[in-house]
């Protein structure tokens, strides 16, 4: 009788991509975004900060594929260069959120007792607010800077990761291998680090990718209302805000291109999130 | 014995389309039940008992399709009748009760109202009469204080009480055929006995044709007039109860009887049946699906077109080498 070997992660991954062309497209888009974030300033055709009073508010043309804005700056270049800032804010915020949330959730789920109560109260307190409003409040109180946008976004996403981590830690705590590890004399810390964390990773990664899209929307929303990023820094949210005043007079390109870029980035991460979830844990599909 | 069957299933075949292939769930199934008779359909899990029941009721899953045969109930050809006609018959002339009664009842509707729903659908009565009849139905299944229980929700009732409620719903319109799919599995032993008594009494009282589906041969022996034994989608033997136990002709039936605890033997006397049910997705299934587990297996058993043969009176068997 022949035994069927379990597929490796790469094989499984390629299978998922073939079965699901949409996920493959998302991966492609993701690669493109990362490329723009990294190489943006070098591949942009014009200097994103260079204004040109002679060529303001020009519609898209061969010279300027996305047209020019109210200061004569090339919209395409600004959109490309903004990728770094928008992705940077979202990625940093989510990683921070995930890291702290995972640790807190782990402690709450593993030790229970006071840890659980305290951390539970903290997450409940955060969730008692409409999240975007809380972010506004935090940025207003802490000061109107890009760092604070990152912290605010990280804080409001904390409960999601803490909950996932806590649930997993709870399950693992009572499972056999923790007892076995304890009995064989492992310290608590190495227990958590080597046995708990690897099992936490899959659901956390899924949550992370599902969350990233929302984090981008959040950050862009905050900058749309004037928080964090200041002109002339190119950033999608602030560009849409600036373009908003011109849309009623028909100059659609100032807001449309950064808005579409924003939409594509969020869309890409949402699809990636779904794909990753299918890859790691298909049972959670809705 | 001349007996006009109320329900007659002839040569029924059912398949399911699944991702891993086509499952030939039923093949050449023959069953019949007459008025006032209790037929037991016995077999292991996965033998096709429930699929047969669902097909008779017209409740087959979307992935399932009838590949052959016919089902006649009263004067109706159940496989050819239009959906509306079947819907009229269900609940009024033929009904079914299910395993796990609590999940089979609507959790956010009182039991009284659920019985009224069935009554309202099939009987033309006034609102006051509806309520009275519903309470009557509850009383008929021997629920204490039916007036009060009318307003209860399923989660407030025990498993046994939920099963009584389901029986009340099923029998509210006085149907002529009842299919009971493992009605007592999951209930405690005392309740099992009580519920089985209730079903048998009601069946006799109302001269209902009853099909009792169960994996418990002992239970079937106590209650049923005739028993059909199923294995892997085939009916392997059908006989009056006494005849079946006195002289089982199919090797599977014999092993089934030997494997059933009878309450007075020792654990050592029980013999399990070797092997497992065959995988019904396999493209080449043997003519006799028990052959791979049978100790009497010989090459002649693999000859195609295995049909049931009458061995005595009302006793039929599908085997090339019956006992």
């Amino acid at each position, binding site marked *: 009788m022949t035994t069927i070997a379990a597929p490796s992660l790469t094989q499984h991954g390629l299978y998922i991509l073939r079965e699901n062309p949409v996920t493959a497209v998302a991966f492609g888009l993701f690669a493109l975004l990362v490329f723009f974030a990294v190489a943006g300033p070098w591949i942009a055709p014009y200097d994103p900060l260079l204004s040109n009073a002679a060529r303001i508010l020009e519609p898209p043309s061969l010279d300027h594929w996305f047209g020019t804005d109210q200061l004569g700056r090339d919209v395409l270049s600004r959109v490309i260069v903004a990728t770094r800032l928008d992705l940077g804010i979202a990625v940093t915020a989510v990683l921070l959120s995930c890291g702290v949330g995972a640790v807190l959730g782990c402690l709450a789920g593993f030790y229970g007792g006071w840890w659980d109560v305290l951390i539970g109260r903290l997450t409940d307190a955060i969730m008692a607010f409409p*999240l975007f*409003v809380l972010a506004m409040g935090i940025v207003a*109180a802490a000061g109107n800077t890009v760092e604070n946008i990152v912290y605010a976004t990280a804080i409001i996403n904390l409960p999601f990761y803490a909950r996932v981590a806590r649930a997993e830690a709870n399950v693992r705590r009572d499972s056999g291998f923790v007892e076995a590890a304890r009995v064989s004399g492992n310290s608590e810390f190495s227990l958590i680090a080597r046995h708990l964390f690897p099992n936490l990773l899959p659901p956390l990664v899924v949550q992370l990718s599902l969350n990233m899209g929302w984090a981008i929307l959040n950050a862009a929303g905050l900058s749309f209302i004037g928080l964090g990023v200041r002109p002339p820094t190119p950033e999608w949210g602030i560009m849409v805000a600036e373009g908003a005043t011109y849309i009623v007079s028909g100059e659609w390109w100032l807001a449309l291109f950064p808005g579409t870029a924003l939409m594509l980035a969020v869309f890409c991460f949402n699809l990636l999130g779904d794909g990753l979830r299918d890859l790691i844990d298909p049972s959670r599909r809705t | 014995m001349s007996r006009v069957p109320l329900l007659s299933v002839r040569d029924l075949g059912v398949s399911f389309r699944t991702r891993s292939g086509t499952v030939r769930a039923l093949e050449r199934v023959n069953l019949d039940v007459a008025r006032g008779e209790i037929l037991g359909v016995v077999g292991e899990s996965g033998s096709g008992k429930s699929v047969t029941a669902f097909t008779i009721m017209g409740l087959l899953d979307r992935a399932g399709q009838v590949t052959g045969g016919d089902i006649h109930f009263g004067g109706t050809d159940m496989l050819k009748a239009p959906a509306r006609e079947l819907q009229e018959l269900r609940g*009024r002339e033929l009904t079914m009760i299910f395993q796990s009664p609590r999940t089979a009842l609507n959790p956010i509707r*009182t039991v009284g109202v659920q019985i009224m729903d069935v009554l309202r659908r099939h009987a033309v009565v006034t609102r006051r009469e509806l309520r009275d009849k519903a309470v009557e139905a509850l009383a008929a299944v021997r629920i204490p204080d039916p007036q009060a229980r009318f307003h209860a929700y399923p989660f407030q009732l025990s498993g046994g009480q939920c099963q009584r409620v389901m029986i009340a719903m099923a029998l509210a319109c006085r149907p002529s055929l009842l299919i009971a799919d493992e009605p007592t599995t999951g209930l405690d032993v005392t309740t099992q006995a009580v519920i089985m008594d209730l079903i048998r009494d009601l069946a006799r009282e109302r001269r209902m044709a009853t099909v009792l589906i169960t994996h418990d041969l002992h239970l079937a022996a106590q209650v049923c007039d005739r028993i059909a034994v199923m294995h892997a989608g085939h009916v392997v033997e059908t006989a009056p109860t006494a005849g079946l136990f006195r002289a089982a002709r199919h090797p599977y039936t014999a092993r089934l009887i030997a494997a059933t605890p009878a309450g007075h033997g020792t654990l050592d006397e029980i013999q399990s049946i070797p092997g497992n049910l065959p995988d019904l997705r396999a493209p080449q299934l043997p003519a006799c699906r028990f052959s791979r587990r049978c100790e009497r297996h010989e090459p002649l058993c693999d000859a195609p077109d295995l049909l049931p043969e009458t061995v005595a009176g009302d006793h039929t068997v599908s085997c090339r080498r019956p006992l």
Partner: protein
Amino acid sequence: MDKLKLLARRLLQALPSLAAIVIITFLLTRLLPGDPAAYFAGDAADAESIAQVRAELGLDRPLVVQFFVYLGDLLRGDLGTSLNTGRPVLAEIANRLPASLELTGVALLLALGVAVPLGVLAALYQDRWVDHLCRVVVTAGVSLPTFFTGLLLIYIFYYILGWAPSPLGRLDFLYIPPATVTGFYTVDALLAGDLEIAWAAFTQLLLPAITLGLFVLAPIARMTRAAMLAALSSDYIRTARAYGLHRATVLITYAFRNALLPVLTTLGMVFSFMLGANVLVERVFSWPGIGSFAVEALVASDYAAVQGFVLVMAILFVVLNLMIDLVYTLIDPRIRVEG
């Protein structure tokens, strides 16, 4: 009597959330870097005004004392004074709240009116075009930035098609707002019998409400579809069909009512998104609600106003969640009877 007890218990359960909200809004000002007095005094204040504000607000006293002063102020309805307008913050917010409520209310109705039928149909006709449409709507819906959708809608329906009125607030400047009864222009105009103003107010409301509604369409449709599918594959549906109940009865009375329960629970999360998106939509459409009030306050560093806004929105959120909880309790007998 039982229902009152249940009500009381649910209200008590909301208290910890309210406590958390009050504590956090308090801490946001006091524990963060910088001088709170400077925040409250404003950018333009000099050292003397700052010192005055510090004394007024008692910012030199111990933290615990400050908290109780803050609490006392809240209970008296004193949310401080707005730097921008000089009026009490509570009065400003109360003035602007009806506009936001009207917008959010209509948006929610629109969203429910489209998302719930869509979800139900997608569940009933799985893998047909309705289901695919639902899936597209859900995927697109969670990716679209609200402010972007709003701008797109303005561009298409106002600039190009000319169907929508100018997106500059609740009522075109030609009209006089109706006498205030509820604060909702459409309702008040109807109450006053003035159909023209009612219609004008309604058409102004439509585009922003659609924008906000589109944003929450996706989660509601997704949850309705999932809940409906789960209900349809339940045992009790099989029983209902086994007894020949009409298709309509099975779908509506049996399946849909059960499916409503998880959809209702989703509304909590939906409200969280809506109250946030409200701010963005009001900004795009110049809608004079508390969202745009907050944005103006943020830009002007009017700290008392921003704090007041966060507090009021959070309390509103708690109240909305409480209402969902109560409705759920009334619908689901399993909770009602066991308390």
